[in-house]
Structure formats: C-alpha cells, structure tokens
C-alpha cells in the first residue's frame, strides 16, 4: 500500500490496525491517522449533513495521490455528483479520464419489475471487475440504505448488506458506506450497520442563534483510539474543514521566553513581559484603553521584527489605524513592512465555522508570532455565548499549537463582566489576565490596570494607574514614590 497507510496511532493502543489517511482537513487527527485500511467505515447523518462529500473527498484526495477509487451513487446522478465536486474545485471528469476515479450511477428505478428472488451479485461483479481494471482499493457506497431498499424484507436487506460488507473486506477494499439517519440515531432498520462497520461516524447539523453548524462525531473505532468530541466542520473553498481542539499541549517553551508589552513598567509588573506563546486576556470597560494596550504591544513586537495578526471585529482596519494614530501610535510602518496584518471582519457577516476557517487559513499563510483578537465580546454577536466560547477555545488551542502568543480583548459592561468569560471555564486556557478599569479619585477619573493572574510569574496585585500617551499606554510611577520592585525598572 502507499505511504499514507500506517500502523498504530498516537494512543499507542492500536497496534495492528492499518490506517488510510483521508487527507480531509482535520479528520485524520480525530481518527488518529485515518480510516481503517481494508475495512468498512460508516458515515451516518441526516439529509444535507455532507455524508456524500466526505466520501467524495476521500476518493478525490486518494485518486490524486495515486489511489484510484470507485464511487457508487445510489442517490444522485453522475452529472450532479460532478457538478457538486466542481463547485469545490475538484475536477472529477479529468480523474475519470485518467482512470483514477470511477462513478457508477446505481440509481434503480423505483418502478422496477421484480419476479422471484435475486441478490447483489451484479453489483459485486461490476465493482470487482472495475476495481481490478483500475487497480482501485477504495470504494464509497452512497447511500447503503438506498441499496437496501430494493429488498422488501428488512431481514433480507440486512443479510445482503452483511454479505456485501464481508465481500468488500475479503477484497481488502477500504470502504466508506453512507447511510441516512433521523436525528442522532440510525435505529432500525439500519441499526445493525453500527455493529457491522469497524468505524462509525455521525454527522449532524443544528441551528443555534440562527446559525447552522454541522458537526461530526466518531462513535466507534474498532481497535483504535479516536477523538471523542463533537467537532464542528465546514464545507468551503476546496473541501471539508474540521478544526479539532486537539488538546495537544505544546511542549511550551517555558524557559522564560518573554516578549515585551511595549511598556517597560508593565513588563516589570508582569515579571518580565508576556510569556511568549501563551494566552493573555485584556478585559475592561469601554474606553479604558484595551485597544491601546494591545496596540502598544503590537508596535513594540513589530519593531523587533516579529509578525502580528490583528483580528478586528470592532472596526475596519482603516478606522482602527486612525484611532490609534490619534493616540500617537502609528501602525502604518509595520503594516507597510509586512509585520502587521489586520484582518477586519464584520462578526455578523458569516457563521462561526467560516470565521474560524478564515482565521486559521490566515494564520497558516502569515505565520504570525502574536495574534490579537479584538474583541472576544464581539464574537458573541456571531452566534451567541456558547458558540463564542467554543470559538475562543478552539482558536486559542490552535494558536498554542502554532506557538503564537494570543491576546484576547474583552469588553465588559461592568466590573463583574470583566470576569465573565473566565467564569465559564476559559480561565484554564488563559495564562495572564489584565483588568483595565476606571478609578474615581474624587478629582478625576483615572485609568487603572490590575494583573489578575499571571501564570508562572510573580506579579503585583495592585491597581496601577496608567495613562495613554503619545507613545502608547504607560503605567505611571507610584505617586507616593515607593520603590516597589515591579515599578523600579
């Protein structure tokens, strides 16, 4: 077999299971390497969840890497299968011409005439003959429930499907069978498919806050470990995209690699600046200087030749740059030198998955050292609290994998709200929390900063007054002149 088949996986408990990489973005990570080689994988889900696309992408990517495959379509005509693929930029027709992909229109007229008993030998003969002719070792049957419908008796249908399954296995074909299911279950008459297949994947789509999100869940994988969560996915651009929260804790270089916040006094308060590759939350009321704090950091990092991606959900790139310019922070030079990229998107313009996909693609291309998300609170406008939380967790996880520093900006509407994101479990993934607030001194309203948390560092737990100057945010020296160690430098 080709070099994309391998044995074992990350869990170490699956020795002996050969796997075939699907090369579907993110799926192999969840399946710890891919689908079982020479065995059957069942993909079940409701209408419109993308079952066929999983099968097609598996065959398409395989065909392009030298593994011819056969697609048996019992639902759609050849033309519409080709058209669906072309909309994702997959040119099936040329793969067909080259003999690397074969489409069978298995559509059986519902008005077929039947007299006496029959079986699926015709299908087996076609698959067998064609597979031998093209050297195919991959097959997708879309959908197996349509095939089963030709048998009146459910028991017969079950027996015939088991025969087909055994036959495919005996031929060493790596197979994907799709099946329709109502909601989260593929109960009778197809329940046995769950037991039959070596790997079972459920697809589902739900609407939350008017946004439709598709999700994938692996419910069974004989002899292998797998990611057991529900993973949202998106069918966009050139295929299916899953962004699994891998939970792979990067062996973070915690040897005190620091990066300056842009203000020496704040660096001192933090015990030497932000930890590189960690997650920093800057939370505060409107107008407290969150964007200024971020921009101070951005300008400093870019000045040291590091690359920063600034995701702006609050305003356009132009108006953000103008706003900072009025504070004396000129972000134009780093933009021109290519150190700073501002990704400005309207939160409402698309769903969570598309947002994530766009950001992840940008990160993969631009490879930033640091990423600023301005603001986390705006993400809620995409699809509500729960989805926003999910979004942030996945984004932070992805950033940690790439080793980039992640600065999250959160706008709270009151002191309590400054912590609200941390209250729902986000705290564990955030390494440093800065709270910006106002303090009424009786004669003026002063901006103050509090380091609520800074993992692995000795930090001050005082409120530090700060001002926005022509050079960005500056922590003021202690008014009483006391020489605390963090304000000494």
């Amino acid at each position, binding site marked *: 077999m080709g070099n994309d088949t391998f044995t074992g996986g990350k869990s170490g408990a699956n020795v002996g299971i050969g796997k075939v990489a699907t090369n579907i973005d993110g799926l192999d990570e969840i399946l710890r390497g891919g689908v079982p080689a020479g065995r059957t994988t069942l993909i079940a889900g409701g209408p419109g969840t993308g079952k066929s696309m999983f099968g097609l992408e598996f065959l398409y990517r395989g065909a392009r890497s030298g593994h011819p495959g056969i697609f048996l379509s019992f639902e759609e005509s050849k033309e519409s299968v080709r058209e669906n693929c072309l909309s994702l930029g997959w040119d099936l027709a040329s793969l067909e011409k080259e003999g690397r992909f074969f489409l069978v229109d298995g559509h059986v007229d519902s008005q077929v005439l039947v007299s006496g008993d029959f079986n699926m*030998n015709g299908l087996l003969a076609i698959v067998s003959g064609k597979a031998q002719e093209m050297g195919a070792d991959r097959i997708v049957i879309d959908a197996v429930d349509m095939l089963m419908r030709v048998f009146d008796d459910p028991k017969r249908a079950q027996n015939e499907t088991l025969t087909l399954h055994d036959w495919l296995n005996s031929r060493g074909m790596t197979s994907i069978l799709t099946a329709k299911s109502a909601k989260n279950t593929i109960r009778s008459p197809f329940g046995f498919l769950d037991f039959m297949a070596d790997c079972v994947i459920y697809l589902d789509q739900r609407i939350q806050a008017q946004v439709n999100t598709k999700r994938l869940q692996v419910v069974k994988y004989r002899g292998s470990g797998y990611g057991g969560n529900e993973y949202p996915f998106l069918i966009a651009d050139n295929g299916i995209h899953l962004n699994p929260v891998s939970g792979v804790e990067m062996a973070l270089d915690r040897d005190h690699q620091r990066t300056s916040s842009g203000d020496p006094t704040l660096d001192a308060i933090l015990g030497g600046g932000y930890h590189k590759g960690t997650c920093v939350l800057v939370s505060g009321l409107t107008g407290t200087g969150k964007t200024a704090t971020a921009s101070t950091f951005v300008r400093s990092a870019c000045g040291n030749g590091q690359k920063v991606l600034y995701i702006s959900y609050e305003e356009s790139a132009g108006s953000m740059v103008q706003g900072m310019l009025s504070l004396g922070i000129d972000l134009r030079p780093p933009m021109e030198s290519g150190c700073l990229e501002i990704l400005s998107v309207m939160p409402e313009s698309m769903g969570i998955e598309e947002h994530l996909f766009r950001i992840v693609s940008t990160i993969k291309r631009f490879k930033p050292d640091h990423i600023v998300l301005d603001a986390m609170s705006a993400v809620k406008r995409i699809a509500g609290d729960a989805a926003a939380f999910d979004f942030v967790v996945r984004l932070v996880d992805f950033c940690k994998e790439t080793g980039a520093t992640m600065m999250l900006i959160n706008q709270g509407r009151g002191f309590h709200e400054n912590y609200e994101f941390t209250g729902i479990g986000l705290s564990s993934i955030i390494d440093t929390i800065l709270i910006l607030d106002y303090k009424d001194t009786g004669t003026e309203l002063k901006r103050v900063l509090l380091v609520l948390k800074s993992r692995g560092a000795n930090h001050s737990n005082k409120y530090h007054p700060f001002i926005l100057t022509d050079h960005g945010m500056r922590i003021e020296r202690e008014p009483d002149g006391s020489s605390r160690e963090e304000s000494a430098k």
Partner: protein
Amino acid sequence: MSTRSEDYGARAERVVFELFVAGDEPHSRAARVNLTQICESHFEGRYEIRVVDVFESFDAALENNIFLTPAVIVRLSGSCITIFGNLGDKEEVLKTLALESQ
C-alpha cells in the same frame, strides 16, 4: 391460463431475452430454467435467449445498470423491459409482457 402465445406481440416478431446471471449460483440456475419454460410455452419458435455472466463481462452489466442478479432484459415491440429476480413468479412476467406488447 387465459393467455396464449398470440397475446405477446406480433406473431412473427422475434423476442430477444438477455439474461444476466452470476455464474452458477442457485438464483441464476433457477432463472435459466424458468425463462426457458416461459419461452417454450409462450414464444415457441420465435425467441432467443442470450446469457450474460456478469462475472465474465461486468461491462455489459454496467452498461445496462444490472446491479441485481439474475435479471432479464426483454426486447419486444421496440420496447425494452428489465425484470429482476429468478422469474419464479411466471404470472407476473407474462402479465408484464402482455401489457408491454399492447
């Protein structure tokens, strides 16, 4: 039987039965026997049975969308009928052919 051979198409017309079998498995064997009986009793002297083994020529099966076997394609009065199964239900077969030939 209310049907006689005159009912199946013009008297002079030859009828071609293309029978798709899967080797020598029981359903395919039964289909050969059943089809021959139908032909002998209703199409005597004016029928032709062509047997196609799908395992030997899968292309022919593919061309005609024969995924289930046995199956017979009947060419009669310019029309083309596909019947799946071992043709055990002869009444059903004859009824279909009578309707098609009208």
